[in-house]
Structure formats: C-alpha cells, structure tokens
C-alpha cells in the first residue's frame, strides 16, 4: 500500500511538471500582456521598460524556471491585472467556486442516484420514460445555453431568482460564504443547476444501467424467491453493488465540475476562480493563468489519487499484489 502511494505521488509530481511546461509554452500564443497594461499613448521605451520589468524579454526556459523556482516556495507572483499576489486572489475566489461545485455535486449525486433508481425500478412507467427523454436534453445541451435559458425564465420572465453574482456573502475567517444569507442561497440555485445538470443526467443513466444489470442477477432472483421485501432488495442489496462504478465516475466528475465551472461562472458572473481564469486570458495575465492551471491539475491529480485509494479500500481483489499473479 505505502509503496503504491509513493509511486503514485511521484507520478503526480511528474504530471504537474508537464502541465506547467505545456501551459508555459502556450502562454506565448495567448497574446501580449503589455498592450493591456499600457494605454494607446505609450511609447516604445515604455513598452520595453515594462517588458524587462516583468521578465518577458527572457527566453521561455528561463521564464519557466523562474516560475517553478517561486512556485515550489508557494509564490505565484503578482497578477498583471490587479497588481496583487496571485495566491491572495485565488484564495479570495476559491470559496465561491468550491461552494458552487459542492452544491452542484450534491445535487448531481442525490438527484442522479434517486432518479437512476426510480427509472430502473419503474423502467416501463410513463414517468420514467419522460425522465429518460428529458435527460437527453441535459446531456446534449451546452452549459452556456442552459444557463441563459434558466436566466431568461427565472430571472427575466418570472423575476424569482437573480441573474448574476453571488448575492450577499458573509466572511468567516478567510472564507466567504453565500450559505448564510437569503440572497446568497437564492443566487446559488440557477448556477448550481446549470453546472450540475450534465453530471446529474450522467450519474442517473449510469445508476440506471448498473441497477438494471444487478436486478437481473441470480442473487436478486433468489432473494425475491425467498420473499424478501422488494424495498430491501432494491436498496440494501442491489444499490450497494451498483455503487462501485458510480464512485469512480463521481470522483472524476468532481474534478470536472470545478474545471467546467468556468463556463457557468462566466454566464452567471459568479465570482469564482473560473471567472478569474477567463478574465486572466482576456488580459493575458500570465501569473494568474499559470497558477490556476497548476491548481486545477493538482486537484485532478489529487482526486485521482484518492479514488485509486478508495478502490483499494472497497475492492479486496486489488489488494493482491499484481506481479504475483501467475495467469
């Protein structure tokens, strides 16, 4: 187990290096930050002074080395746009994204599993068929469009929910939360649905398929023959066995909820790290872009690691040393 973890951690660090390298080699194609930092009346010497000041006149390997050197000390530099430490800005914006992702994740998980079970048990019912058809919409419509549709219906037409922003937030230590105010909770609803809808339909379809599979198994039939209540069969025996693949997918999707939050955050002007990243691209704010990409890759790598270890815990078969197997 320990050797396995060490190996995985080493691999993870390598992945981070590569992500940094690829990201950095791409920044030069994103554009030139100088144009955004100086006005139209600037002179060539202003441009050169700023370029030297920012170290942008250095060759790419030097820039990457400098970034790494500082990043391992936890210093991601200063944002070109805001002139503040990037780590400070990220920490300020992270709660918004994490709260949104958590709510969407819970929504996706609860809704997905619930509807999945329902459509599997009542698979010939009208309601189940309607849900299955609607879920196609959730899978196929782009997030952007869903967000705009929801805004149009619930903010513009009905006027029930806010169309943008996070409402009023409360600061608890360094964490800003929207959970404690009415406007904060209201502001969460539309973005959370937008962000979670795809994941919810995905989980629902997965649970349904797995469940149908399991319900056909012999042990379920024997259980039925023994006269065990339908409820117990469905929820105690069948559901448990459908959950292993669900955990994998959910784990991986958790990462993508945070990563895909970029689009949802842009549509709803949600003040999280995704919106920060989009702004950073527009402004060619290289330190922010670099830090965000590193953050996201650390998260993905971390989640994968945890999922792998959960497998280890859940599935005893994996604990057998693979190299010892003779067949």
């Amino acid at each position, binding site marked *: 187990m320990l050797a396995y973890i060490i190996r995985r951690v080493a691999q993870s660090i390598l992945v981070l290096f590569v992500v940094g390298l690829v990201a950095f080699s791409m920044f030069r194609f994103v554009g030139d930050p100088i144009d955004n930092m*100086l006005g139209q009346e*600037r002179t060539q010497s202003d441009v050169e002074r700023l370029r030297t000041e920012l170290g942008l006149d250095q060759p790419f390997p030097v820039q990457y080395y400098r970034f790494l050197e500082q990043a391992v000390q936890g210093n991601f530099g200063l944002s070109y746009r805001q002139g503040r430490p990037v780590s400070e800005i990220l920490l300020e914006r992270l709660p918004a994204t994490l709260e949104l992702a958590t709510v969407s994740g819970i929504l996706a998980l609860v809704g997905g599993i619930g509807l999945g079970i329902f459509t599997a048990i009542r698979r010939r019912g009208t309601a189940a068929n309607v849900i299955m058809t609607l879920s196609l919409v959730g899978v196929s419509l782009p997030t952007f469009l869903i967000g705009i549709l929801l805004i149009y219906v619930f903010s513009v037409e009905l*006027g029930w929910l806010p169309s943008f922003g996070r409402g009023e937030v409360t600061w608890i230590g360094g964490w800003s939360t929207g959970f404690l105010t009415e406007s904060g909770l209201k502001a969460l609803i539309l973005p959370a649905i937008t962000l979670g809808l795809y994941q919810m339909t995905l989980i629902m379809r997965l649970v349904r398929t797995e469940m149908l599979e399991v319900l056909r198994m012999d042990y379920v039939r024997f259980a039925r023959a023994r006269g065990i209540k339908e409820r117990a069969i469905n929820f105690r025996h069948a559901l448990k066995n459908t959950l292993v693949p669900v955990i994998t997918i959910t784990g991986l999707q958790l990462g993508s909820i945070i990563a895909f939050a970029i689009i949802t955050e842009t549509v709803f002007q949600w003040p999280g790290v995704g919106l920060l990243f989009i702004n950073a691209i*527009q402004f060619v704010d290289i330190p922010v872009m670099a830090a965000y990409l590193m953050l996201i890759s650390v998260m993905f790598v971390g989640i994968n690691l945890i999922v792998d270890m959960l497998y280890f815990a859940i599935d005893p078969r994996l604990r057998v040393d693979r190299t010892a197997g003779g067949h």
Partner: protein
Amino acid sequence: MRLPLALVAVAALTAPAAAEPFRWAGQTDPNTMDPHAGNSAPVLGFLNNVYEGLVRRNQDMEIEPALATSWEPLEDGPGWRFTLREGVTFHDGAEFTAEDVVFSYERASSAEADTASWFSGVTEVTAPDDYTVVMRTEAPNPIFPDSIANWMMMDKGWSEANDVTRPNIERGNYATINTNGTGAFMVTEREPGLRTVLEPHEGWWGEADHNVTQGIFTPIENSATAVAALLSGEVDMINPVPVQDAQRIDQAEGVQLLRGIEARVMMFGFSQDKETLLASDEENPFQDPRVRQAVGHAINVPAILQTTMRGAAEPAAQLVSPAMRGYSDSLSERPAFDPERARALLAEAGYEEGFSFQLKCPNDRYINDESVCQAAVAMLAQVGLDAQLEAMPVRNYWPELRADNYDMYLLGWSPGTFDAEHPFRFLVHTPQENIGTWNFGGYSNPRVDELIPMVQAEIDEEARQGMLDEIAGIVQEDAVYLPLYVQPLLWGAAENVELTQREDNFFILRWVTVN
C-alpha cells in the same frame, strides 16, 4: 415588466432605510484605481467620478473649470498659468493646494506612469503661491488645457504617507486599490473584478444635482447576462448593449435604450512600406494610392451600417468624427460606393485581374468588428479583390500588427484630446520613437511631418484649422486610411433613470437622476 417581488423583498431586508443604490454594469473592470497608472477608457472613465483634474469636460465635451477656476497663457514665454479653486478638500479632509498639482505633475509624468505622454512638451511646473500653478512648455500649445482634462490630482501628503509617490503598473501599490480624490464620489468598497461601491463626497466643492446615495459598479463580461440583469431589474444601467439586443431593449417595458455616437472612428489601414504582399509574396499593390482609393469605392459603408450595425452608426469621412475640434468641414464627403470606379482605378494601377491579400481583424475589440470585416470581404470580391480574412482576439491582434503580419487591417481610433491633431500625430506621422507610434502601415509624407509640429504650436485658431485642413486633405487624397464609420454608443437603462451619454463613453455618476 413584471416586478421582481422577491428581489425587492431582499433589497428591503439588506439595505435598511437608505434609498435604493444605483447599480450599473460594464464589461470591463478598471484594472487600477491609480489615475496615473492606467490610460485606458475603463480606468479614466471610472476614476473621473472619484478624482478631478484642473479642467474637466461637460456634457457636450467642452472644457470647463474644475479644480482650476481660470487659466491664461503666460506673458513671458510659452505655457499656461492656472488659478486654483479655493476651499477644495480631498476625501480624507486634506486641503487641495498648488503643491498637490506640482506633485501630481511629477507623478503623472514620471517614467513609471502611463500618462507621461500628456506632458511631453512640458518643461517646468511651479507653484508661485498656494493657489497658482505655472506650467511652462517648450512651444506654444493652444490645446494644452484640453489635453489634460484626464490628468487627475492626488494629494501629496496622502501619497507620501502611503508610499505611493510613484505609480506602479506592474506590481501595484496602495493606490492601486485605495483612492483619495477630490471628486463628487468616494470609493467606499473595492473588490477588484467583483464590485466597487461609490458614495457621495460630503465635502465636495461643486453643487450636486444628482440624487444618487450610493453607486455600485459590477463588471459583467457576458453581454447576454448583462442584458438579462437589466431586464430583470437587478441593475439600473448597462454599457454597452450588444447591437443585436438593442431593438429588444428598445421595445421592452420598464427599460430604455440610449443611443449616442462615440468619438471612435473605425477605419481600414494598409501596409504601405512593405515591398511584397503577405498572402502571395508578390509586389505590394497597396503602395499605390489608386489601389487604396479603389478599396474605398468598393466598400458599401451604408450597407454595412444597415446590416451589421442595424442603422446605429454614422458613416465617417475623416479620422475624427464631425463633433471633434479641428474637423475639416470641407472634406466631409467619403468615397462613394462605386464598383465600376473601383475596377477602373485598379486597372489604371495595373491590377485588372485583382489580387489576393490578407485582411486582419480583431474579433473582440470593437462592436461587431468581425462581421464588418466579413461584409467588406464580400464587397471586395465584387471588384476582383480576394481578401483572406483572419480574425483574432485583440490580445493577439496588436502583436500581429506590430510584427507587420497583415496587408490590410481594421483599426478604431478615439482621439484622447478630442482634437483632429491627435490621430495625425499617432496614425499619420512617420513612425518614430514617440510619434507615429500607431502608424503600422508606415505611411510617410514630409509635408505632413512638417505640418504636425506647426499645428501643435499654432495659437491662432484660423491658421491652425488651415493646416489641419491641409493634412486632412493629404490623408484623404492619398487614401492613407479608409475611414468607415463612427462607432455607436448603445447603453441600456431603467426607465426611471436620467443620465448623460458622453462621447468618450465615460459614465459620469453625478449626472444621474433616479426618478
């Protein structure tokens, strides 16, 4: 429009007693609160509410007294004497005196500032007494007061106490987030990229004719979201309204569409100093003025305005709009749409068969920029010119232009001084270190280069206009640029809001009345 009941309830819960704040949204958050660290419309436009200059522009863009009550040319050499307003205080209570002006000059003209070019001809700034400032210039400069309307005054004492005697564009400092101006509003809350709250400055010297008790600015990048926020009543004003949504806002209940004309003129530029074309490596036809004129006759600007701008913009014949100072009234006719004439001119220049070239356009900088270019491509094809359009985000666009990677390109120019001389200085003068810095095409005309410094130093209005007319005539004759139209200003606001749309696209909060 239906009343968002829930929202009203929430607002009532969270904002006790005080009148409703005025909430507005724009596309870009000002990236700094330091008036000398940013020379862009989002920064200067926002800070005009917080800081003030010696002079300011009124609703019609005319110069009027602000922190200076009067000014006159010096008797003993070129330059100006400003008499300062007495009894002006900064937001922190400190008094505004001549010392602050001298300090603000040193700060704004330093190498670290983004505003240094405004003071390129200034040699010395002194304060003979507390309420007089003398600014000496190398040569007479009749429009000097006009050119410093956005030069904002900072308090010397505050700046020294907070260690911000110089702006810092790349690292930021205390003044990047905190402000201390003399303006009608003070910043009470600043969360970069999220929201900025303004409240009236009680000790303001002027008479407040607005009724705003609190102003909240939120940047909303996505224009569809901004429109939804306006329609649902969550914001009272948005700038800009996307052209395609203009009609909808015009017709929706409870909101109004405000149309105006921006000072920005959109134009096509041409590569003129390169020997060969980028697209084909053949000889560069744009070196020949007849070819550039042919492009002018091939593009049907009224049709473009009708389709891509939905009739919201005015055609332009010069590098500035007619509202600018120094506009040449005699040259207000733009090349007529005449494909036959375009073909004839091309034939005359030896290009009967037409040619292929590369057209570069930004796709996120100006209103419907890419669609305008697409329309132009189709029109150019009618006269045998095969334009290969390459559209890109503006962050890639300027580097491409600087690297000479284009044959023809789209440019918008808003003259910072609201004077016809401004675009000549930046776009037409032969490119050099401090002048002609945006003349990507490399046009060079000794007569123009000779005239521009003369214009800058001419005190006599009539003689000055004569020289501006001559330059404008040369620019039109040589088809150095092909002016297309003046970019429209489209704002949306709640029906009960009265405001002023100024031509520089600045939103001035003290001209807002909420009924």
